[in-house]
């Protein structure tokens, strides 16, 4: 379970202003909202990559803010993080990148053959052919492939929680749908707790058990996709409407 308790953060301006949210074990929740409202900042507080000015983030009851360096490393090992632009290590090939997702202990004890097997399994889980991509450098991959390699790296350590930071941004609709399906497949197959930060409202409503809308650093709405669609809150409605409009536009284009 992940809990955000009264999280505040400001850089030059306030970004998060008292966010409270609980994500139950095994739940898949999407965090949506206008740009610059602190969605990615909130996600990064989960791992202590950004320390809140006030408040706390807890994973399974353990505080990330008050954790010692060793405890924080242990907490982080429970979590897979999929970065917006994949954040693959430029100097490493796909095999080395994905194997970085394994714990140090695993790397020492598993043996090369088992490490390779797990890396290949993770790549197959994200619909990539290991024979093709393993020796490639990140610069040789397309945007969609990089995102999926980033996802494979997050998966290989068998995390209990996966945090997705804009997993479909910059992808074409087909690749976006593929990544969305992968997120659902992984959540269903492994029972992993998932938080997806996204601007893709249609995708969020399709894949999530709950949707949270962050606006001006505060949670404005938390509820099921159905409640989101029927909400009378003007901002939520605007988001839902935009989705409907986009869907209609896509349909018109397809019909033509």
């Amino acid at each position, binding site marked *: 379970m992940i809990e955000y308790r009264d999280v505040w953060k400001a850089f030059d301006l306030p970004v998060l202003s008292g966010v409270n949210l609980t994500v139950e074990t095994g739940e898949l929740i999407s965090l949506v909202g206008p740009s610059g409202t602190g969605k990615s900042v909130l996600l*990064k507080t989960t*791992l*202590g*990559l950004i320390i809140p000015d006030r408040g706390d983030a807890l994973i399974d009851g353990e505080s990330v803010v008050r954790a010692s*360096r060793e405890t924080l*490393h*242990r907490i*982080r*090992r429970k*979590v*897979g*993080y999929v*970065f*917006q*632009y994949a*954040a*693959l*290590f*430029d100097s490493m090939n796909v095999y080395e990148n994905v194997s*970085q*997702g394994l*714990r*140090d202990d695993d790397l020492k004890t598993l043996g090369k053959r088992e490490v390779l097997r797990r890396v290949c399994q993770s790549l197959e889980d994200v619909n990539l052919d290991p024979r093709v991509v393993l020796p490639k450098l990140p610069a040789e991959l397309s945007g969609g492939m990089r995102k999926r390699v980033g996802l494979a*790296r997050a998966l290989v*350590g068998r995390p209990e929680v996966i945090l997705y930071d804009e997993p479909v941004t910059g992808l074409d609709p087909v690749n976006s749908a593929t990544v969305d399906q992968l997120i659902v497949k992984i959540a269903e197959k492994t029972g992993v707790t998932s938080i997806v930060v996204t601007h893709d409202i249609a995708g969020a409503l399709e894949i999530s058990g709950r949707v949270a809308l962050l606006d001006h650093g505060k949670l404005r709405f938390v509820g099921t996709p159905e409640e989101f669609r029927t909400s009378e809150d003007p901002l939520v409605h605007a988001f839902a409407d935009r989705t409907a409009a986009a869907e209609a536009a896509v349909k018109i284009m397809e019909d033509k």
Partner: protein
Amino acid sequence: MPSPTSALQGLLRGVARVTQAVARHVGQMSLLVWHIATASLSGRVSFRSVITQAHQMGVQSLPLTIVTGMLSGVVTAQQGGYQFTSSIPLYVLGSVVAEGVILELGPVMTAFVLIGRVGARITAELGTMQVSEQIDALYSLGRDPVPVLAAPRLIAGTVVTPLLVGLANIAGILSGMFAAQMTVGLGNESFLFGARLFWHNWDMFYSLMKATVFGFIIPLISCHMGFLTRGGAEGVGRSTTTSVVLMIISVLVLDAMFPPLFLN
């Protein structure tokens, strides 16, 4: 036209700002050194990474270091020969070249080579990793970037630089001897006689000590500035420039502190 009082206030504010920035950088770098030391002593630094970095810093910098050392020796011999002809016994040139190269030019010119070739690259590399979230990715994977990225570079720099300086010194003296023969007709025997006449064994130790300090400070500043990088490609450019400036100033300040501390 500002009044003298406001101009003085502005000057004092500027000095205070610079002092504050220097104190902040020194404090942050001290913490980085402590972090690297604890990581190294607890065996969390990969030996393979240290060797890789040593190869990149040492072997790949060797040709440029040797050329720089040779040119330092040649220039010193030519200028000394020009000044000494008809005034001072020419064999003194041997001492001027050997001591000039060993005490000053070898370590400092090698440090400048490393600042340009290695320091700038480290800041740009770590800065790019910072702005592209690769450093965050390391944290998220439960790995500490300091033992993974900074420690191997710092250890390699500290070990490799004295070796480079030693070779630059040898190249400088040999090329200076050759240049002295070619320009003022000073024979090798006379050159070596002059070099031995004012030679102290301490001087070589002093040279290598300087090299060790420079080899420590260059990767330290470059890693520190790399980790501080913010703001995309422009930020990487800005922090690389700042890093190079800081490294040059630090090397020159430390160089100026060495004689009063160790040559009295």
